[in-house]
């Protein structure tokens, strides 16, 4: 697999690891990643075990499923209960527990819930089933939002009347700012999301380096990308620097993807957003703009929801803010497991707790 397998080379990885050990020094260095894909890759390749003990990789709120509020799932479930509705969703959402049920459970009770690889699949379903209302559940960050925007744009072109989206898209930079402002966790650097940066451009992190004197390295997803990015962070810290560096030069650029950015501006507008476990972060979300309101399931199918409930013992919030680790949670692996998740972090494959449970109960 070209441009993939070369970035998994064993000898090069060993060389990078050696170099990281050589210059990391002794003081504690805390690096936060804010991308579900990074969380998975780090654990999939066993990277934490290769790093010196003084380097700590912390998982931040980079899992889009994990930061989606209970009430979003509750809303989707309410819509699913109407048998004239077809819910189309990414696989990631199907097991997420809402206040009292999940889409998977509802499917078992007869709701029509289908898994899609792309929002375009959902639009196709709307075309194939003109007698049903197709609602696509749009969660994700700046990587997925443009694909949803493009789909809504296409739905408008097609005049598709039975298609809408229930969205909860979020954006990274102000969330990263909120974490730094919160001061709960002393962070030395950020590993910045690779594909978000492909869309937005790598410049969006400049303010973090400048105002918070925190090094930021945009990283790809292969093990050599991550190790090289960690090395670049250590090198910056050793030299007393704080800048934005792009390690993912084969895909991410300073300006980003102009076509995607244009679509985002046209179909969405910036809004405040509710991050599960963190609270409301100003200007960290995307909502469908008025011009496309007929594709906004919140407006087309308003629903009265009971107040959503979270498990009081669940500390997912602290975990997503990087303040606590999965092992700190009293429910972790005893009551809360991937088979019966009690909170967001365990539900998604990319959640801190799920990844920790699967990959890290170490040999």
């Amino acid at each position, binding site marked *: 697999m070209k441009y993939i397998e070369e970035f998994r080379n064993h000898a*090069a990885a060993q060389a990078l690891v050696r170099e990281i050990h050589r210059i990391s020094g002794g003081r504690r260095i805390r690096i936060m990643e804010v991308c579900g894909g990074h969380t998975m890759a780090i654990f999939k390749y066993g990277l934490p075990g290769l790093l010196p003990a003084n380097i700590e990789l912390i998982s931040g709120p980079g899992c889009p499923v994990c930061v989606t509020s209970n009430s979003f799932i509750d809303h989707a479930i309410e819509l699913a209960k109407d048998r004239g509705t077809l819910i189309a969703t990414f696989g990631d959402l199907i097991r997420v527990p809402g206040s009292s049920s999940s889409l998977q459970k509802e499917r078992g009770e007869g709701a029509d819930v289908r898994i899609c690889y792309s929002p375009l699949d959902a639009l196709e379903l709307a075309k194939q089933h003109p007698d049903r209302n197709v609602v696509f559940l749009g969660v994700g960050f700046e990587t997925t939002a443009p694909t949803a925007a493009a789909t809504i744009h296409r739905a408008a072109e097609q005049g598709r009347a039975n298609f809408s989206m229930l969205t909860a898209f979020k954006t990274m930079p102000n969330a990263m700012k909120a974490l730094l402002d919160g001061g709960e966790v002393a962070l030395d650097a950020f590993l910045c999301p690779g594909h978000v940066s492909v869309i937005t451009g790598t410049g969006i992190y400049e303010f973090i380096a400048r105002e918070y004197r925190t090094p930021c390295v945009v990283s790809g997803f292969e093990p050599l990308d991550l190790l090289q990015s960690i090395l670049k962070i250590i090198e910056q810290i050793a030299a007393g620097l704080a800048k934005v560096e792009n390690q993912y030069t084969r895909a991410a650029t300073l300006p980003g993807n102009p076509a995607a950015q244009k679509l985002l501006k046209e179909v969405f507008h910036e809004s405040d957003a509710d991050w599960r476990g963190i609270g409301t972060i100003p200007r960290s979300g995307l909502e469908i703009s008025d011009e496309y309101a007929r594709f906004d399931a919140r407006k087309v199918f308003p629903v009265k929801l009971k107040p959503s409930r979270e498990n009081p013992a669940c500390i997912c919030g602290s975990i997503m803010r990087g303040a606590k680790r999965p092992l700190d949670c009293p429910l972790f692996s005893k009551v809360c497991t991937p088979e019966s998740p009690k909170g967001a972090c365990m539900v998604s494959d990319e959640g801190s707790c799920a990844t920790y449970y699967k990959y890290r109960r170490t040999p």
Partner: protein
Amino acid sequence: MKLVEVTGTTGVVEISGVRRTTDLSLVAPVEPGQYVIVHAGFAIAVTDEEEARKSIELFEEMARGLEIEGEK
């Protein structure tokens, strides 16, 4: 993934003999033979092969350096 077919804003990408349809509207215009990054059914970027080659060469050099060290 390698773009093997292009028809307007739709294309077919291939990886290890697996082919999938992909929407190209976020990266058009593109040509077969180019490599793209794919997410949720859309190509979101064209791989900069020059940069990829530079990275790969650097990693190969590191790997060689490690071998030489090993031989000492």
